[in-house]
């Protein structure tokens, strides 16, 4: 199935309340930024109303354009290549890549260069305040038979709570500025890396009641994910 169809299938499931919290947030971002997906969302709503009511008189009415204008908002611009990774995804992948390399490089070379810090600062800021940041975290646990239980993402950082299906063990993976360190349960964290940047120091953490090996595995997978995107 193409990316486009795959995305539309998810939008269809979203309209029925059949997506997880994590997927919901990710898909909403996609619909919001792509007119083709927006149209599909509208078509689903029209179909729902049409089948629910025998006399759906105002099926074709659309006031959304006027609302955009009256509220002084701008419509999203149509993407040219729907089946290829979008520009924002590339930016995000670049941010992820830089973030992961930042962790590795900083742990090897404690004093990073100012140029790298500036660049990393900019990219990390982009990465942490987005649902896509969750994708990095989720990829870091791929193949581990875990369930995403909860997550929090805002302009301060991103935190994901996971549960290992077989053992019931729980753990967190997070990306936070150092001043938010209390929120990530630093005491139970066995694996932490720091990234120094112009706007501050960021912490990448894997914590919880899983073994150190598993924590290492998560960091390795994050690294592998970044390598794959090269």
């Amino acid at each position, binding site marked *: 199935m193409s990316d486009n*169809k795959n995305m539309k299938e998810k939008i269809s499931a979203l309209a029925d309340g059949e997506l997880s919290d994590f997927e919901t947030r990710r898909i909403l971002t996609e619909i919001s930024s792509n007119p083709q997906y927006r*149209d599909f*969302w509208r078509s689903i709503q029209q179909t729902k109303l049409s089948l629910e009511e025998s006399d759906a008189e105002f099926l*074709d*009415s659309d006031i959304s354009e006027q609302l955009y204008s009256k509220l002084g908002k701008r419509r999203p611009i149509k993407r040219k290549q729907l089946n290829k990774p979008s520009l924002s995804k590339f930016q995000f992948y670049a941010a992820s890549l830089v973030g992961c390399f930042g962790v590795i490089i900083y742990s090897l070379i404690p004093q990073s260069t100012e140029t790298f810090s500036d660049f990393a600062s900019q990219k990390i800021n982009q990465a942490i305040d987005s649902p896509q940041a969750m994708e990095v975290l989720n990829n870091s646990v791929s193949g581990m038979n875990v369930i995403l239980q909860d997550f929090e993402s805002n302009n301060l950082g991103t935190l994901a709570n996971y549960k290992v299906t077989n053992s019931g063990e729980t753990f967190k993976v997070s990306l936070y500025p150092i001043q938010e360190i209390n929120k990530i349960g630093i005491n139970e964290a066995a694996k932490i890396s720091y990234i120094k940047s112009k706007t501050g120091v960021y912490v990448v953490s894997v914590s919880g009641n899983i073994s150190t090996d598993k924590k290492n595995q998560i960091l390795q997978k994050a690294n592998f994910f970044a390598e794959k995107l090269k």
Partner: protein
Amino acid sequence: MKVSNKELDLVLVKRAKSGDYQAFDLLVLKYQSRLISTAFKFVKDVQIAEDIVQDSFIKAFNALESFREDSSFYTWIYRITVNTSKNFLVSKKRKSELLNSDLSEEASYEIEPVETYSPEDLLQATQLQKVITETFDQLGEDTRTALTLRELDGLSYEQIADVVNCPVGTVRSRIFRGREVIDEAISQYKQDNKTKYLEVKK
């Protein structure tokens, strides 16, 4: 954990609150037709009903901060629309009172709403519904059954999977396939209408 319809609206409201207007736009697309229908029952004029719903959404957008997150967005916007419609009627009645008092002290102010829902408007609305229902009827049996159980009976994917004895993933695919076919029919209908409109303009 699955996100229910009400929870999904709440996610959209939260995103809108944080400045994501596109999230609010998805709520507009979701509820506009139902609300225009509600407003029309009061004002009996399509254009005015659309204006009222626009005003209602603007009021809602500007008051998002006051929206209580334990309540339903649809109930909230529905209430705003009903109140805006009632206020419109009151205002119309007052205008009429003023007008009548200028003409005659004893003039009656009873207003008979004028229906401006033209036969053409009605035809277009019913045509689109016809396109949707006819396409729905032509879907393969498995697809139609899945979509019927979802849209008309309100079953979850898991419940549908139990009824038709297939995996949840298959239910999800069938429902999507049905919607995709209907979406293509809607797009074709809109394209045809656009072509007709351009031909008339020539």
